């Protein structure tokens, strides 16, 4: 650990919640409904369970190699070359993730809020402001997360209240009429909305008590799962399964429909937009921080903060590659399927299996345990 900074499990939870909830939540009601119709919320639930299981796997790996991030232990488990390739893969993955996050943020903001502001200006602004956080150390990121999470969770819940009388719960029927095969195919798309949890790879060694990581991850992912389910269920309640599939960003459209009776601000849509800026900012900052940290660790740098600025420009150009919204979403689908699923779900399990087969880590883990016991 370079700087000796630590995060608590609460901070890890805050980081995870604010990272994982990002651009995906806007389209989630549509994607799950397209996949399995009215059973979408169930898909979200199952996807969440898969993410929790995988994060427990990652936490196990982290405990087998205490004090090491994925960059180091992937070298130990496989070979040095393969480890570097895996780490470079992760780096690419996070850089692309940042680019998508920034581009979709810009497109949505432009569509709903700033229709004359150039996309470039929106992208570069959010990138610069998040690079500022990415230059800091992990403890700062953790504190930032703790500050931000209540800022968006509370209003998101509150603003859904006025719509309750207009909800039509029968929109969730029929229950469980999707074929299991369709459900499984849908699962591969829904798990991508939990991507970001694999950052535990990177954050676990920074935890003051890394044994608690699995517990913290379970809590964080459960919270995310509940928020996702709330959004999916209310969007389906408001629009119905047919209408929801027509909307590109059903979550926003839902808040657009909600009117607070008699209030000064008739439509809370604008307020939600502002809150969402905070959400994306946190997601982007943490992903950015991860890319910077991984690169720093691959190059075995003492300090990583100076990498952040050059990366801004790389991400900026990547973000501007797609020509239009449909293309952005086409690329995003490809990205989550071919990079997200392998790196988030397949790789951790594979690494754990290889490590077990080679009988690694246990020794080190025990040694670590003894050390901590001695220490206390």
């Amino acid at each position: 650990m370079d700087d000796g900074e630590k995060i608590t499990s609460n901070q890890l939870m805050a980081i995870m919640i604010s990272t994982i909830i990002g651009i995906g939540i806007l389209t989630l009601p549509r994607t799950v409904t397209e996949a399995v119709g009215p059973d979408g919320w169930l898909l979200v639930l199952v996807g969440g369970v898969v993410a929790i299981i995988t994060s427990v796997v990652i936490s196990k790996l982290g405990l087998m190699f205490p004090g090491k991030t994925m960059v180091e232990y992937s070298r130990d488990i496989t070979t040095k070359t393969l480890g570097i390739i895996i780490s470079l893969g992760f780096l690419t993955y996070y850089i692309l993730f940042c680019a998508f996050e920034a581009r979709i943020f810009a497109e949505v903001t432009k569509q709903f809020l700033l229709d004359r502001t150039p996309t470039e200006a929106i992208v570069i602004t959010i990138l610069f402001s998040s690079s500022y956080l990415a230059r800091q150390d992990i403890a700062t990121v953790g504190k930032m997360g703790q500050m931000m999470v209540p800022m968006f969770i509370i209003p998101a819940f509150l603003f859904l209240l006025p719509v309750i009388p207009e909800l039509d719960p029968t929109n969730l029927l029929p229950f469980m009429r999707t074929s299991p095969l369709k459900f499984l195919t849908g699962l591969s798309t829904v798990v991508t909305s939990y991507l970001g949890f694999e950052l535990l790879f990177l954050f676990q060694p920074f935890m003051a008590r890394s044994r608690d990581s699995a517990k913290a991850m379970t809590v964080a992912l459960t919270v995310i799962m509940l928020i996702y389910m709330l959004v999916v269920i209310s969007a389906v309640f408001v629009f119905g399964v047919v209408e929801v599939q027509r909307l590109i960003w059903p979550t926003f459209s839902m808040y657009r429909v909600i009117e607070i009776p008699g209030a000064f601000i008739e439509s809370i849509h604008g307020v939600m937009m502002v809150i969402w800026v905070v959400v994306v900012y946190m997601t982007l900052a943490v992903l950015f921080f991860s890319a910077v940290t991984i690169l720093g660790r691959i190059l075995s740098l003492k300090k990583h903060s100076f990498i952040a600025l050059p990366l801004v420009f790389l991400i900026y150009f990547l973000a501007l590659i797609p020509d239009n919204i449909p293309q952005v979403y086409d690329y995003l689908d490809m990205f989550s399927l071919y990079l997200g699923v392998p790196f988030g779900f397949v790789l951790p399990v594979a690494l754990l299996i290889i490590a077990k087969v080679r009988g690694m880590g246990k020794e080190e883990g025990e040694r670590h345990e003894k050390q901590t016991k001695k220490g206390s």
Partner: protein
Amino acid sequence: MKSKLKRVVSLALVVGIMLCATGCWDRIEINERLFVLALAIDKFEPGRDVQNEEEGGGQHEEGKDQPEASPRNRMVVSIVFPNVGLLKKEGAIVPEEAKFSVSTVGPNISEAARQLNTRLNGNIFFGHVKAILVGEALIKDEKLFMEVLDELEREHEISRNVDFAAVKGDAKDALFIKPLVEPIIGTYIEKIFRQRKTGRFYAKDLGRIVTSIREIGGAVLPRLVVAEKEYNIAGGCLIKNNKFRAWLGEIETRAAQWIDNTGGEDVISIDISGIFIPFELTELKRRMRVWRDEADIIHLSIALEAEGNIAGHIIDVHREVMEQSFIREVETAVSRDMVAQCTAVMDKMQHEFGVDIWSIGEHIRKFHPQIWEDVKDNWAVEFTKMEVDISADVKVRRVGIIK
């Protein structure tokens, strides 16, 4: 010395960053916006009299260009916006009208709006649109109507829950009248929609209507009739196969809403020995049941449960309203009347028009997925073959304050 230089440089940097990093392309002052409150869209028909008029402007130039028949002139788009200047206390020179209505001809709504921008002194803003009206001729033109619906739904400024109505005649006329009771037209329409003291029109919003048309190609729009100084929103406009099919009467629409469980309060008058007794409907519940018999015929049973008051009788009969036998008589008569009305409209929808305006298909999809699997591809026909049974259970609860 050095620290002074440092201070100057950092100050210059701070100011420089503030100047460069802040800015806004989208800044529009609120008084530069024209808050469109209602939008009316008609089909452009060259032969007819389309004045390019501007109410309140009062300038009608001689020989002003009449829009001519051209492939680009497809629809007449009219907007109405309030005179925000009137809200200023004093001093400002503003016209006296409460609202301004303008109209133009164009190939689609977006371009028409830009054309209006060449004539108006502000930015047209659709974020506060309260009502959208479409003219009769437009609804009869399937292609144009579908284009208009798509454009309305796609525009992010227009909320999906904006009120939507079909106008008998030209929708444009609705924006150019001076209503007696509420000068601001969009708000006027919105208030009629919201009062819910009658079930004589379907209050459906843009989102619901578009969805319904997309799903079954049909829907019922509220019907708006323009008079000299007021509107009458009553009855409905039946859409079938993405275009106009028929006008529905007020009573029919009311019965249709009973079946739909969306009917509000209303009064049903029944003739009992020569007196038209008003029965105030205060509460209505509907239960819908669908089943399939051995012969594969789908049965639909609709049971209405109504509650209400007797609101009038005749002055020279004493005590009659207090008697159970009389109350039973009223209940039976109301129930018979409701069933007859509902059966009539159901029969019309099934056998004359063939439009499932109640989304019974959706009900089957939700509650009877097995039946739906068999009928979903052929629902339009299955709907007409359905056996329907309607019953009503009416309870008189109160009789007013005299015996």
